[in-house]
């Protein structure tokens, strides 16, 4: 036995996973009923959602208690680092799929719908120019420009990345005020971003007639910005939890991976936005 050996933490049996499974069962079955207008869909869905929230609170709460009581050693810390990295990789692949879709649509699908063969046989009069709602578009819409709110939002997210790094410096210097202030600013900037995003959607629906049903342009626009917005929300919640934990006196200069994980996630969301800004709004 090596003398430097440190016992790896293995948790006690836990009731939380089964709550999580029950929650997803309800969310799945509830959504299906809801979408098909049969049975008590919304009820089942919200029971599932409530269970999921209970499970997340309980589970993460326990992890935080275990961490704060010093049960996790260096090895567990390394495991957390690896796992967060791989989790973000899976998220990257999720967005990659949608970027691939946008690429395919713009470079292959729409041009071929507008090809001479297609126009002469199937879709008379269709002009393949992006943005388009397709050959059988029912209503006209205006596309979302890049240089209004989206550009502002880019600035906001980039700034939030900087404030977050500034908060991290605070952590490293044991300057808790800087840490708190940086986190608070980041969360506020995230909320501001989401506020603008919601305003942009309302504007799009209300005045530009740009809807999810606006053909392929509307589909890709809302799907990609929508999933991104969801991730911003999740990231902001993560950072908010970190802020609460900092205020509760958690974390030390050398032991604050939860904070770093949330920061990694935030930067990931940031980078996705930059790509989104270029390929969805700008080009």
């Amino acid at each position: 036995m090596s003398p430097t050996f440190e016992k790896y933490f293995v948790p006690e049996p836990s009731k939380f996973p089964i709550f999580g499974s029950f929650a997803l069962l309800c969310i799945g079955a509830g959504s299906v009923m809801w979408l098909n207008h049969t049975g008590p869909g919304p009820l089942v869905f919200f029971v599932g959602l409530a269970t999921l929230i209970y499970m997340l609170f309980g589970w993460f709460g326990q992890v935080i208690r275990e961490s704060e009581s010093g049960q996790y050693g260096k090895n567990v810390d390394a495991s957390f680092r690896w796992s967060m990295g791989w989790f973000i990789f899976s998220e990257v692949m999720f967005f990659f799929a949608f970027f691939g879709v946008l690429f395919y649509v713009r470079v292959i699908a729409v041009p071929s719908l507008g090809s001479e063969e297609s126009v002469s046989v199937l879709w008379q009069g269709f002009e393949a120019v992006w943005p388009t709602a397709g050959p059988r578009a029912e209503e006209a819409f205006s596309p979302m420009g890049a240089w209004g709110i989206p550009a502002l939002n880019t600035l906001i997210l980039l700034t939030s990345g900087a404030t977050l790094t500034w908060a991290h410096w605070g952590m490293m210097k044991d300057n808790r005020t800087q840490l708190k202030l940086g986190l608070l600013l980041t969360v506020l900037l995230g909320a501001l971003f989401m506020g603008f995003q919601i305003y942009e959607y309302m504007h799009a629906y209300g005045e530009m007639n740009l809807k999810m049903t606006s053909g392929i342009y509307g589909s890709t626009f809302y799907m990609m910005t929508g999933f991104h917005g969801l991730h911003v929300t999740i990231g902001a919640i993560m950072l908010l939890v970190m802020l609460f934990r900092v205020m509760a006196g958690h974390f030390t200069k050398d032991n604050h991976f939860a904070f770093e994980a949330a920061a990694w996630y935030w930067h990931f969301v940031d980078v996705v936005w930059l790509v989104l800004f270029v390929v969805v709004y700008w080009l």
Partner: protein
Amino acid sequence: MSAVTPDQVHDDHHHHGPTGLMRWITTTNHKDIGTMYLIFSFIMFLSGGVMALTIRAELFQPGMQIVQPEFFNQLTTMHGLVMVFGAIMPAFVGFANWMLPLMIGASDMAFARMNNWSFWLLPVAAILLIGSFFVPGGATAAGWTLYAPLSVQMGMGMDLTIFAVHIMGISSIMGAINIVVTVLNMRAPGMTMMKMPLFCWTWLITAYLLIAVMPVLAGAVTMILTDRHFGTSFFNAAGGGDPVLYQHVFWFFGHPEVYIMILPAFGIVSEIIPTFARKPLFGYASMVYATASIAILSFVVWAHHMFTTGMPAATQLFFMYATMLIAVPTGVKVFNWVATMWRGSMTFETPMLWATGFIFVFTMGGFTGLICAIAPIDIQVQDTYYVVAHFHYVLVAGSLFALFAGAYYWLPKWTGVMYSEFIGKLHFWCSIIFFNITFFPMHFLGLAGMPRRIPDYALQFADFNALASIGAFGFGLSQLIFIVAVVKCVRGDGKKAAASPWEDAQGLEWTVPSPAPHHTFEIPPVVK
């Protein structure tokens, strides 16, 4: 690895956790969770098998006898989904859970609690998936590939399938992250990457593939969901989308997925053959590199599933050559297994029989894959029974046979009791004979032009179909033999197994007693 410090086992642990059913629901023990995965996947295997036998019963003769065409389509769809996501994938995860910590000298998986959730999501997904048979309109009948526009038009069974796929995806991603982190971070001192048993390597790479492509599948089914209910036009040409787009996204997931189902099988076979050839694995490093190159290549071959969908000739050529390239690392592997056997002192206990059978029959599947990869040929055989024959040769005789090989190989470790050689060999011989009776004729059917996924067919296909159906029922019944073999072991009916029941088995798992105690390697062994 060569030697390990003995006596690393501390079974002084009394079970202080919950008992009875609650033990299984709340467990954080990798062996418990592995066992649940294995049992779950076997139940799904039997359910999928019942669907398959109903299909074969209908196809025994031309004409419609037993089921309605709509229900037939639901059966082929659900058979594929249940076997892929319910049987084969979870079974390999079960092996990973049981064996990886034992093989690398870890006390458990890196995230034991999350491990539990990965498992307990699967029954949820299975309820949604199989429950879809009972909703108005029945289960989805769009084929396991869920092609648009058919999948956009299906009833609410399709929605259930979409959510089931999402939940299975969450389970797979969590399971895969757990495996990657366990392998990267929990190895015992001295267990360098290149000393790891090959099974660990193949699972590491499989887990990487899972993390990379399950999110893509999630994206694909999400787009189907929004096309169905929220008015988007991803797969609708009238709105500027394209149904072919679905195929691209699906197969970007789908082809790596087939490697997800075969790489761990390569790992298992690479453990078994050296043991019974009493020689170290030939070309260990080349095995690792071959596995990695298969994984990388598998991202750039997806459109070989779409040769008849229509694409530019240059694209077809690219995907054809890229696909054929995959045969090279696959060939390296087969070569290495055979070279391991070369001049070994071989014996053919049941695991070795399955492993050798695997090499024979899987390689045939590899060859038919190569034939399918040639675009001009594939344009003839796509969507025929030839493809059905191909993928059953690689999935049944590949993945499933390797699973059985591994099950017999490690049953003594799991239960502490030797299985009956007679029963195991009977299981093998019945399986391999009936397997070939079932699927070999399908090559001829496909070449003669019989389309797949149809409930009725032209008269000239009758004889081979009858033969295939007879084989299928034989194969199905043969699997009951496996239940007997396992139940006997679990009930302690057999010779007690030693810590290392095989003469020349290498690996840390054989240094702990059989059955493996609840907790192993709480103090890691030192590998020299």
